[in-house]
Structures are given as C-alpha cells and as structure tokens.
C-alpha cells in the first residue's frame, strides 16, 4: 500500500512501517538530551502522521520538533523494522520549507554561497586574516583554530579516480585533501581532484528542506565528474549525499553515478595491499579514538573501514562507549540549534574523555570543527595515515 494522499506528501507505506516500539529512542541524540518524545524519531513520526492526516495543524511546535532533528539517522540503524526516517523527515521538511519558508535567511544566504568556490575561498581568506588579528571569536563560532590564508594547490596526477573536494572543506581544510591524495597515490593510483567544476554536493541544502537547490547541485556534480571511474570522498556528509543522488534525482543516470561513489576508507580497504610495505611505516604513538560521523556509520555503513585503514599505522585504537552517538554538528545544525548541539556535544566529549584518548580522528569536516570548538584536537584519518607514510 504505497502512495501518498496526505498534507505532508509522505509515503504511506513508509509511515506505516513504524510500529512505535521505541527501540530508536536511546539512539536519538535529541531525545537523549531533552527526554521529550516529540524530539525522538518515534514522536516525530507520530507528529508527521497527525499532520499528514489533517488531525493536527502544522504548528510552530511541530515544525520545531522536525527542525530539531540533527538527521544523524542513528535511528535507522537501530530500527528493526527498517523505517526510512531520514527520507520521511526530508520530505516533511521540504513541505514545511515550501509552505512556511522556515530556514533562516542567513542560512539560505550561506548555503547559496557554498557552490561559489572563488567567493567562498576569498571570504575564508578574509576570515583567516581577521582571525590572525583576533577579530573573530573562532572557538565560540566553531571555526577551525587557524583558517588557511593560502591553500596548497591540488594537482591532477591522472584519471584513475576522482577525489571529490567539495566546498567548505576545500576552502578550510585543503591540507586534508592533500593528505588524502598522497594516501591514494601511495597505492599506485592516479588522482584527479574535482575542483571548482563540482563545487558542492548539496547535502546541507537537502537537510534544510531546499530540495530544488540540492537537485541543481547534484546535476552539476554529475556532469563535472564524468567517466566510469570511481569517485572517492573524504567527507562523510558529502559521500552520503553523492551516494543518495540516485534517490534524489530518481534517474538511471543518477543511480549509475551514485554506484561509482566510495568513501575513501571504503575504497582503501580493498587497496591496502597495494601500498608498498617496504619500509614499513612506524605506528603513530598514543591512543586513537575514532569519532564515527553519523553519515559514515548510519548512512554509508562504512565506519569499520576507517578502523581497518588506520590499524596498520597507529599503535592503539580505542572505541568510544556511546555506540556512535551523534556529536551534534549536523552540518549547519549547530549554527541553528546552538544549545541542543552543545548539549549533544557534551555527551560526546564525555565519551571521549572516558576513553582517555590522545588523538581523536573524524572523517567528516563538520564533526571535527564542532569538536575542535569544544577544545579538542581532532585529525582526519587520512592525515594520520599520510603522516605515517611520510615518516618511513
């Protein structure tokens, strides 16, 4: 029994697949910090149902309940009934955005800037200079401690694989791209960085309910990243978005494109033995805690690959005891829902401190910036591996 008749345009079969058992609750970061069912997947689905069926109006409280979701999708991993919560929420938020224009103006403005790489880089450089002059409270704003004024250029070495470089990450964390390219090339594979031709994956637009913008960006990325070769992504959020183009655009072409997308760790697991083991790389000392980005763990399901890639290069990996609970970053979420994001982050920093880790790694720029703002040192796994390889 599929199809949709309701006011939110939700797929009835998807809605019905929730039996309200509640097994999602402990995995939901916003339920964990608020204790409110309306801030849980089960409660949000119940609210979608009553709005969809016209039983309750789309009130401010209900919109807030939808908006407060970080979209980590941990509930989908926990759900024994495979309820596609992420998709339900995206559709519901799309309707909310269309009918009420709920996303704040400054967020929309910011999101429009993302696909303009030169503007983004120029703006970032200005910010970097202001940072050096101590004109911006970086930590409070969740900015990286030291934004780059200049960036090392990425150069294509061939066409074996694409490296998707994205928007903010390219402007703020290009060193990670450099490291990633080095690691990929250590397997004897040539790399073509995507650069400005595919400026943004559109993930944040989808999350904000700006579906049309997201679809435009998807089409642009698809035409830029041509060919049949693999597209490697080192940002968990972007990887999840690119892998979802098949559903977003609902075309065979998009599905074929998505099938070429791999998280870089996922791809490296199958190419580890191509890295020259002579001389062996010395292990990086200390306890390394892995923060699993939600879009790697719950959406792509490739978080174990990060461990397998890191294992040969670090002396000890420690697991956090929070079962991959979200850190609260959620792309632009931490800007819009500041207090909730901080409360969620407190749980994460608690888990990190209990782990007694010396280094925290995260394969997603949003998560690492959010954690850096809490005073932690966070590295990308590719940086550690590149460092170990360089030390040979």
């Amino acid at each position, binding site marked *: 029994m599929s199809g949709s008749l309701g006011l939110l345009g939700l797929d009835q079969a998807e809605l019905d697949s929730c039996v309200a058992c509640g*097994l999602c609750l402990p995995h939901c970061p916003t339920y964990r910090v608020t204790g409110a069912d309306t801030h849980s997947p089960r409660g949000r689905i119940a609210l979608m149902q009553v709005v969809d069926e016209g039983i309750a109006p789309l009130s401010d409280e209900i919109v807030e309940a939808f908006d407060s979701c970080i979209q980590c999708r941990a509930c989908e991993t926990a759900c024994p009934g495979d309820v596609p919560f992420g998709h339900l929420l995206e559709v519901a938020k799309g309707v909310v955005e269309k009918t009420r224009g709920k996303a704040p103006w400054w967020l929309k403005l910011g999101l429009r800037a993302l696909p303009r790489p030169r503007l983004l880089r120029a703006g970032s450089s200005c910010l970097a200079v202001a940072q050096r002059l101590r004109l911006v409270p970086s930590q409070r704003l969740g900015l990286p401690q030291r934004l780059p004024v200049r960036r090392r250029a990425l150069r294509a070495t061939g066409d074996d694989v694409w490296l998707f470089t994205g928007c903010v990450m390219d402007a703020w964390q290009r060193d990670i791209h450099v490291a990633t390219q080095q690691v990929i090339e250590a397997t004897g594979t040539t790399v073509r960085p995507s650069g400005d031709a595919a400026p943004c994956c559109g993930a944040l637009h989808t999350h904000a309910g700006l579906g049309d913008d997201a679809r435009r960006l998807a089409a642009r990325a698809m035409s830029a990243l041509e060919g049949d070769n693999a597209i490697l992504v080192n940002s968990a959020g972007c990887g999840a978005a690119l892998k979802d183009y098949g559903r977003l655009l609902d075309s065979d072409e998009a599905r074929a494109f998505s099938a070429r997308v791999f998280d870089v760790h996922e791809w490296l697991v199958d190419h580890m033995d191509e890295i020259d083991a002579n001389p062996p790389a010395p292990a990086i000392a200390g306890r390394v805690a892995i923060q699993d980005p939600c879009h790697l763990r719950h959406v792509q399901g490739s978080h174990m690959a990060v461990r397998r890639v890191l294992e040969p290069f670090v002396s000890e990996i420690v697991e956090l005891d929070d079962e991959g609970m979200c850190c609260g970053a959620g792309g632009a979420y931490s800007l819009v829902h500041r207090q909730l994001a901080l409360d969620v982050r407190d749980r994460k920093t608690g888990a990190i401190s209990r782990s007694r880790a010396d280094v925290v790694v995260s394969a997603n720029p949003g998560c690492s910036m959010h954690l850096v703002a809490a005073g932690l040192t966070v590295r990308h796994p590719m940086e550690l591996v590149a460092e170990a390889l360089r030390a040979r």
Partner: protein
Amino acid sequence: MFSDGAAGPVCFPDSTEHVQAIMGVAARFDRAVLARGAGSGLSGGAAPLGDPIVVSTTRMNRVLEVDVEDRTAWVQPGVINLDLTRQVTPLGLHFAPDPSSQQVCTIGGNVANNSGGPHCLAYGVTSAHVLAVEVVLSTGEAVVLGGLDAEPFGYDLRGAFVGSEGMFGIATKIAVRLTPNPESVKTLLLAFDKVADAAATVGAVIASGLVPAAVEMMDKRCVAAVEDFVHAGYPREAAAVLLIELDGLRRGVEADTAKVAEIGRANGGTVRVAADEQERALLWKGRKSAFGAVARVAPDYYLHDTVVPRSKLVEVLEAVYEIVDRHDLTAVNVFHAGDGNLHPLMAYDSREPGVNERVAAAGREILEVSLAVGGVLSGEHGIGVEKRDFMEYQFTRADLEAQALLRRSFDPHCRLNQGKVLPSAHSCADIASLSASKADGVWG
C-alpha cells in the same frame, strides 16, 4: 488502541522536589496525575486517560550512587535499564532484570510494571532486585519504602509498590541490587522441525533439574523477521528455535551445556553453541528486536502476555495458531518458554475494515484459553488499560476489592494513573462510596 484520552500539561521534573511540587499542585486543583518513563510499555499503562498531568521522568536520568561493597546503586527513575548495566560493567556487575526493551525502558518503568525479561527465569523479576524506593505520594509527601538493611521496618510496602503500575505513587529514587557477572556463559541455539518438539525440549530441560539463565522460543515467522534485521544465522527453515542460555561457574556450565544439547538432540533438534561473545550478542539482539521486527510482517501488531503451565505450552500454542488463523490474522510467536510466558502476537493492518474487532475477538479467545488451563493474564507487561476489563476473568469481586484497598492505602483519592488495572466497578468511586457508607454500619 486507546484513543479516548489526551495528555494534560506535560512536566519534566529533574528532582524529587519537583515531583513533590507537581503533586502539590495536582492535589490543590484535584487533577489526575500520570507518570511516564520511556513509553515502551505494552499494556497502555502510561497512556493518558482523561487529561491528566503527565509527569515524564526521562530527565531524572542520573545514577546517583554505586556501592560496590554492598553491590547496590541508587538511581533516578529515568535511568535506562541498559545504561545502568553498561555503567557498572567495568565493576563486574549488572542489573539482572533485562526486558527485551532494556535498551530503551527506564528503571522507573521496570519498577512500575515489575518487569521481567529472558533472564528472570534464573534471576527473578524486578521486585527481587529492588531494595528500596523513594516514592512521592499523591499528597506530595516523600517516603522511602524498604531499605538497604536486611529486614526493613513494617509491611513489605516496597514489594507492594513494585508492580503497582504508577497507581500508588511516583518513584523518584530507586535502590537496586547489582548482580555479579557470571564467570561463564554459554548460549545454545536449537532448531526444530516441529513446535511441539521445541516445547517438549523446554519441559525436559526444566524437569532434568537444570535452571537455565534463559529459555526463549521463536517460531518460523518470527525467525524470518528477526533474521532479516540481524543476520545472525538464525535457521529460517526451522518451525521453531530455542535460545537457551546457561551461566555460572565454568565447569558446571560446561556440564549443563552438554546436558541441554543432549536433551535437544533427543527431541529432534539441531544444536549450535555460540562460539564467542560477538555471536552470542547478535543472537540476543535478534531476540530482543523481535517485536519491532514484526513491522516487516505487517504495519500493526497486538500481543498478549499470558503465562501458562509449562506442560500446557503445546496445547495453548496450537490453540493460539488456530484462533488467529480463524480470525484471518497473522500469528507470530516469540516468548519466554522457560517460565511459560507466552507472547502471542497478531500482525495486521489497522486500515483494513473490521480488523480491529477481529483482533479484539481473537485476543479475548487467547486469554480464555490461557486462563482455562490454569494460566494468568499477564506475566510481565502488566494490566494497564489493555487488560483492565479482563481482570474479572481471573479475580473475584472480593479479590479486586482487596487490591483496591491496597491502592487506597497509598492514594486515598485515587489521583494517580486513573482508569488502569482495576475494572471500573472496582475503581475509586466505587470504593469511596463503600467507604462512605461504612458510617451507616454496612462494613461491620
């Protein structure tokens, strides 16, 4: 199923004082009060009837104190069952009651429902693991029932409070017993071609003098739904599987494991012993996700929770399949076989016209069959609103009046969780009028 109520004001207290203040306001304005934990109950016990003030305990979620020497902990009611166990695991301890919903249900809810779980077969239900409860009564007064000493004062009001489904008071602090982790654990998965053979194995294991930590049964439909989710290697072709766990000391557990395997094989089963902790955890994850996994069968489900004598398991199971088939519904069975606690589950689509009536009729017949063989209405889910009107199947008027008296000892105005457990004829109004007439000499 219960759509005739709605929540009034919803409060999120984070201390005993907050709960006392809420009770004070409720008393002043004579409003009903309903306590609620994670809302994972299966009998509508935390569903509001009328428009009560809802007291959500989810923010009272701190473990206040762990006493390793006495193996006890004081917790707030909103602490999630599994969170407590996780927190004390490094100390070699755990909280023994493990309802299948343990990753979400709160200890306050466990206390309200006297929750069971697979491992209560050997370890006992919640009541055996609660030493003391700080309770806010409907007057706003806070009292501590029970105590950490061996034989606390007076009647066992702690025991009365556990399982009172939120109708005696609101627990604001709970002292629980922590159980040392067993030295050795073995989990066996036994597969059978016939449900009757699985049931016979359960009887034979118990009769042999073994007390397994858990004996769980799942039928073919349940196995299919669960296996689709966990991929633990549950045998889809089996008519029924048993999950039997033995724990204790190493050598004794080895001997018991061999004995159970032998009994299983003698009854026509194939036996697999979980090789490591990972395999064991996956098997249990499957079992504990079973109700949610039923969403793969149909969008709605309704289940009962009767307990029958173990020797009647086969008879009752056959009757359950017959009843559910006859009402054109889908039966899924997953239950605590070791203590005869059935969870006959009917999967259906509530939008199908007339289906709710068929579900209700089939449910009633299942209850009748269970009680007719000497069973009880509920083994661990509680009565709530769902089985309230069936209480007269099991109890006489005098029995129910006695229960109403106990309730009124705690909550004279019957302000807490109105409309639950006791059928309307034994509700507060009725008792209140009886009490009023006492002056006229009716109650000699």
